[in-house]
């Protein structure tokens, strides 16, 4: 059964795409959660829809034969522009990041539907981008996915300490002379690339789930930034590959299956983790220091007894 799936060329391409998305999305997602911009992926996804329609429009104008030939390049451009724009708005501080995101959500969808109509298509044409269509991944799409994923991984993993510093405490990073502005733009661009990479697998509306849910799972079981990222990647790969495999035998939407699976893992882990991880601190959480008050003898004795209990 599994051999049958693995020898299917459609499935091979789809599995490679799913694997790459499973690794890259959580890497970027970790930084987004760290800087409390969990919804950035959604905002970029919506803007990418306008890019898809724009690519469609340009393709139609140029008379290209598959009329969506420029849809993915259009999505890449729009996503990058949108992500950088959000960063600029956030930096200028006039509008809160939250509000800027909301405006992107509406503008992205409205722009996409408007442009696809002008291009002679219908909003039905946008469905495969909104919800994914991994079975239609072509060799060209796959190569683009591979290249973009490698860029995202090289940046996200190679610069992880600098990106951690900027995401953890931006003011300290500025006071350390780090190129904070450039690093923020890098996070924005890498997020945009990830959205377009994941677009074919889970669709623009569910992209963000792949970035955020594996991180949420990882947070249940670890308390370190590096390990959160690693665990999230493992979760991402497992749910993407498993979810896709399920759709080989059952006729269900791959994107939706993957996301539901991820949320299922989150639910199970949040129930099971507290039982498995015994909350036993390695040492007494209270430091053995005198405080600023003079205690009567009885209280001092009680303090010594309390210290013993914690040991």
């Amino acid at each position: 059964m599994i051999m049958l799936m693995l020898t299917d060329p459609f499935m091979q391409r789809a599995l490679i795409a799913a694997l790459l998305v499973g690794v890259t999305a959580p890497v970027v997602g970790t930084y987004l959660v760290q800087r409390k911009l969990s919804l950035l992926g959604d905002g970029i996804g919506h803007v990418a829809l306008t890019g898809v329609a724009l690519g469609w429009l340009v393709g139609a104008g140029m008379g290209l034969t598959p009329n969506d030939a420029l849809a993915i390049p259009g999505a890449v451009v729009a996503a990058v522009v949108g992500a950088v724009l959000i960063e600029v708005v956030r930096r200028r501080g006039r509008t809160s990041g939250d509000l800027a995101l909301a405006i992107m959500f509406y503008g992205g969808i409205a722009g996409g539907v408007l442009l696809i109509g002008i291009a002679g298509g219908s909003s039905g044409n946008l469905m495969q981008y909104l919800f994914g269509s991994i079975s239609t991944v072509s060799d060209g799409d796959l190569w683009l996915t591979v290249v973009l994923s490698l860029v995202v991984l090289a940046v996200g993993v190679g610069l992880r300490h600098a990106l951690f510093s900027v995401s953890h405490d931006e003011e300290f990073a500025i006071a350390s002379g780090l190129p904070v502005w450039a690093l923020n733009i890098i996070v924005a661009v890498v997020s945009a690339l990830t959205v377009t990479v994941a677009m074919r697998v889970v669709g623009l509306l569910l992209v963000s789930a792949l970035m955020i849910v594996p991180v949420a799972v990882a947070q249940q079981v670890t308390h370190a930034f590096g390990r959160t990222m690693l665990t999230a990647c493992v979760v991402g790969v497992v749910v993407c590959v498993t979810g896709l495999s399920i759709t080989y035998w059952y006729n269900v939407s791959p994107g939706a299956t993957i996301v539901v699976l991820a949320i299922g893992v989150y639910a199970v882990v949040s129930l099971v983790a507290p039982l498995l991880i015994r909350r036993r601190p390695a040492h007494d959480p209270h430091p053995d220091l005198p405080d600023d008050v003079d205690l009567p003898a009885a209280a001092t004795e009680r303090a010594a007894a309390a210290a013993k209990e914690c040991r």
Partner: protein
Amino acid sequence: MTDTRQVTEPSEPVIEASGLHFRAGASHILRGVDLTVRQGEVVALLGANGSGKSTLVRALVGIKAPSEGTVRLLGEPLGAGRRGAGVDWSRVGYVPQRAGAGGGIPSTAQEVVASGLLHGRRLRLPRGWRDQVERALEQVGLADRVRDPVHLLSGGQQQRILIARALVREPDLLVLDEPVAGVDVASQEAFAATMERLVGGGLTVLVVLHELGELEPLVSRAVVLRHGKVVHDGAPPRARQDHDRVGHHHQHPHADDNGGRMAPDVAETRALDLEVRP
């Protein structure tokens, strides 16, 4: 206590701010501040809440761009063109006032302190960074907490993590924003001892304080800020005379000592008083 650095006379200024103004909307927070800190000095920046102390130090390390005026850090201008591109950031350590939100993902003490090793154009950790981090944590007495998530530590311990993050790059200049606010006496004493050792080694310090407290013996000069202006620059002011009045809460651990160094000139003491009266 060996002085490894040659202190030249007169020593070079490491911080030079002139004519600093800072406006945020309608409020004029800094109103023409001049401040010079020379190598080897320990300067306390004093003033009431809202006097502009934090804004001033944030302008001095490049976080806030002043509305007017210039800042030179280690001889290099801040804010002109590429912000502080000429500054040797490996020589500057900054300790913010609070741990802040600290991001949405729990991080270990090791991860947070290691981020102090990145500065300027250095975007990757150097070889042997784990040892450097451990040494920095040892200096603040938290060596056994390397792998603990920072958000589970107490407020005082988190403050010490931030100090370790600034110390890990072995700076020549340390800028601290209220490092002992809300920290118990024992920790304040430990902090003062660490600072004494570092200052003995030639460290220059600019520290924002509410009260001189345990650091008093170390402080060579005090700058008092009031209503966005420097109102005193010189010998550390004495504590207020009516310090122990009813309802007064202070973090100074030895209130009894104040009687011993009561100012003869009451008027002057009151002028330098660090509190804002209604």
